[in-house]
């Protein structure tokens, strides 16, 4: 790829992306007009609750959703300036795994249970990079070692079931790293793991990212993880991005009421016991039948008439790097004041 710094396009640019599922009960608007860019070497957190479209978005980017006509797409996915959606499957296969790798939530189901760990890694190296078996074996041991698995050589001869969840996720990361991808998409990589192991895996991902100057999209439902491990964040709600900015900025000055509500609903370790939680009333909208106007309006404490009829676009106000989709955003800088009295 061109190393011409002056006119280099961003690593990933997603423009007005739609992914709809044609289901027997109607069209599910899983991703509904999403745009964002990701620069090289940055970590973007995509945060949202179940059904917000965050996983479908990532699967759309690497194009692993069903191709039987039940999935409808629209929009552009520019990876280093090339639109992935226009590439023939053969070229896309070259990019998937090699340029863009993915780590999934459940490491047991993403590894082949009847193949030895070593085989699963060397396969990538011989088939994708054309290494000889001998070289691949050495490289596999190096990779296993680099993700913090002890006794690398010996581990290569074991099956996934012999490893703990945390170790399996390390193997999945080693496989993802095998081709030195430019972009890693990690979809809830620690949700199935215990907290102490979660911290180890997140530290490992960060270490790998820094060493390789790789970009990462970290998909999670946990704002605490976003807070500690990402540079930028996009908050998704019902298939759309509700707010997008630098992570520190989001935590300090959320503008979209949903972001604020999400932050306030999680119990904090610093609160005394029996602190009443600020639950968000109601449920996320049904994606088969999305409401008109702002998708959060039915649960929003600040809702006004306009919110029920007109859909807000993702726009910036005074800070161009901070965009949000809201007609009545929280005042800049006084989020906490509003928060304490706002949501019941």
């Amino acid at each position, binding site marked *: 790829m061109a190393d011409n710094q002056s006119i280099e396009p961003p690593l990933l640019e997603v423009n007005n992306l739609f992914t709809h599922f044609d289901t027997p009960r109607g069209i599910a608007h899983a991703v509904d007009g999403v745009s964002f860019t990701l620069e090289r070497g940055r970590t973007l957190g995509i945060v949202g*609750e*179940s059904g917000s479209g965050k996983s479908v978005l990532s699967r759309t980017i690497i194009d692993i959703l069903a191709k039987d006509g039940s999935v409808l797409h629209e929009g552009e996915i520019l990876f280093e300036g090339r639109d992935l959606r226009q590439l023939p499957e053969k070229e896309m296969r070259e990019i998937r795994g090699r340029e863009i790798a993915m780590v999934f939530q459940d490491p047991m189901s993403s590894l082949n249970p009847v193949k030895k760990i070593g085989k699963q890694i060397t396969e990538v190296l011989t088939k994708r990079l054309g290494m000889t078996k001998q070289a691949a074996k050495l490289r596999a041991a190096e990779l296993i070692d680099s993700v913090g698995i002890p006794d690398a050589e010996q581990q290569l001869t074991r099956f996934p079931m012999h490893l*703990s969840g*945390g*170790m399996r996720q390390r193997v999945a990361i080693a496989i993802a790293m095998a081709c030195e991808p430019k972009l890693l998409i990690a979809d809830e990589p620690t949700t199935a793991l*215990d*907290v*102490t*192991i*979660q*911290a*180890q895996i*997140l*530290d490992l991902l960060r270490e790998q990212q820094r060493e390789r100057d790789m970009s990462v999209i970290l998909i999670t*439902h*946990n*704002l*605490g*993880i976003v*807070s*500690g*491990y*990402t*540079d930028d964040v996009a908050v998704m709600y019902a298939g759309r991005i509700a707010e997008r900015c630098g*992570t*520190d900025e989001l*935590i300090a000055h959320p503008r979209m009421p949903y972001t604020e*509500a*999400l*932050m306030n*609903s*999680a*119990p*904090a*370790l610093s*609160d*005394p*016991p*029996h*602190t*009443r*939680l*600020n*639950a*968000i*009333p109601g*449920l996320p909208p049904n994606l088969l039948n999305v409401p008109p106007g702002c998708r959060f309006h039915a649960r929003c404490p600040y809702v006004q008439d306009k919110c029920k009829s007109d859909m807000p676009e993702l726009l910036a106000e005074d800070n161009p790097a901070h965009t949000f989709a809201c007609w009545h955003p929280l005042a800049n800088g006084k989020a906490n004041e509003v928060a304490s009295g706002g949501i019941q």
Partner: protein
Amino acid sequence: MNNGTLLEVNDITVEYVTQGQRFAAISDVTLDIAEGETLGLVGESGCGKSTTGRAIIQLPTPTAGHVKFEGQELTGLTHNEMRQIRQRLQIIFQDPVSSLNPRRRVKDIVAEPLIIAGNKDAADIDRKVREVLNAVGMDPDITLDRRPHQFSGGQCQRICIARALIMEPKLIVCDEPVSALDVSVQAQILNLLEDMKERYGLTLLFISHDLAVVKNISDRVAVMYLGKFCELADSERIYEAPAHPYTAGLMATIPEIGDKAIDSGPALAGEIPSPLNPPSGCRFRTRCPQAQEKCTAEEPAFRDIDPGHQVACHFPLLGE
């Protein structure tokens, strides 16, 4: 919190046999819960927290030790006697969807405990079902004739809570009741549990792997590791001044909103050892940053370091 002890658990051990080998899922667990109290039980997968919760309601009866509920010993009871007691000793589970029978209507699901208990008065059953559904925030007129798949996870958990409440229990064992739920819904259910506790005078044993959730709901918190208690104290205290290195490590690894990318401390190294072959001495020593020779040789007793604060460590952390 007040008065009498509702539940007394003394030195319970639960053993299983796997691949011809006996191993203890929990050993020598001792705890008591006062009437009206919420005791939180926290730990990572495989630490024995669910086994402890289940052993209390005799599912299965512990291999050794005693469980006293309202002064009555439960371990020797027959199936029928236990069935009577269970009316006052309910449990709710992690996955609300799989703990509801998908083929039955909500009204039958919620009424079932009453019917098992021998209530034959249809009007009384209907009245009680409506009352508990109202209490958990579900409109009976809409919900009674529906089936579980027509509800979200959070709503199914409300139905599970209604089913547990209908017998007016004294104690509810809550086994990871909010782990399968999104944070916004999780907050709704935690608030609901607090409300129900007040309204029905409940005592809770709240099991979770999430320390922030446990702190929010509990009066006291017990931390388990590899089948044993390592620390027990008031929830405020255990979070402010954890004395066991494991508790401290666990707390340091929780990602919190507002954490800066740079300041996350070192994660606890290593993984939980196999319970089939626990380390000698202190079970946490293989991962403990403070481990010394004594920790390998000698198992630390679970002892008081302050009134109401117990810890199983030779070298407890004592303040800053």
